[in-house]
């Protein structure tokens, strides 16, 4: 383990802003994409009578 405390971990040696914005944006994009695809799927699944499945 690299860190002695949570605040040290969050500070990332002074680079906390850059590191956490990067990881946060990545998480946001990945989760957002999953949500969008799910919503898209729901939209198609609702809309039709005889689906492929």
């Amino acid at each position: 383990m690299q860190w002695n405390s949570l605040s040290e971990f969050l500070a990332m040696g002074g680079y906390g802003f850059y590191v956490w914005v990067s990881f946060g944006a990545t998480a946001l994009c990945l989760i957002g994409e999953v949500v969008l695809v799910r919503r898209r799927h729901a939209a198609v699944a609702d809309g039709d009578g005889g689906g492929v499945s």
Partner: protein
Amino acid sequence: MSVTDINWFKYSSPQALYPLAGKLTPWFSALAVILMGAGLYIGLLLAPTDFQQGDSYRIIFVHVPAAWMSMFLYVVMALWAAIGLGLKARPSYMMAQAIAPTGAMFTFLALLTGSLWGKPTWGTWWVWDARLTSELILFFLYLGVMLLRTSIDDARRADRASAVFALVGVVNVPIIYFSVQWWNTLHQGASVSATAAPKMAAMMLLAMLIMSLGFWMYSIAVILARLRCVIREREERSSVAGQVERPVAVGGV
């Protein structure tokens, strides 16, 4: 140029693809979650601080995998496009269509995290060096592929035109890679190469590779899920007889 031109026999294939994609998605999703969890654990908690860059280097655990995926997915998309053009196979066009938004998203992430890494490392958000610029071109190429598809109403032509453009753009991907050697400016040389590998601590390399694998599994999962949407949407559209096909909404970025 209407729906009736579609070769209905090819439809048997997407029909088989739909449940298969549905079955595979949860497995790849689980793999993605496990790998990314492990990668984050090693990368953020175990990997040592870099003696030159401090902890800002930890951005590579998302930046490099995103950049790799952005290029890899483009090549895969072009491959499906080529197969589509060669075999006139509709499912491969659907794959290409499903890949594009995820590839564009990873390109965007690579640019964003690269910029966030550049600020503390080089003191500037953006440098016009070869790799960043090529990544930007790649982003435009993804947008081009997607917009060309949405602009053409006829699904058949949209498939084939965007496939041709994807293939034209793939000439750009090797340029992206070799451009580093052509005019290497502020950007450090490729961090991971046969010669440079010993520079990175084994733990860092491990975290990066696991994260890359995680992103890869994530891509497969989300692309298969989107493939199901695409199959469904197209089937729905063509089931309305006589109706001209509407542009496909390329959501999901």
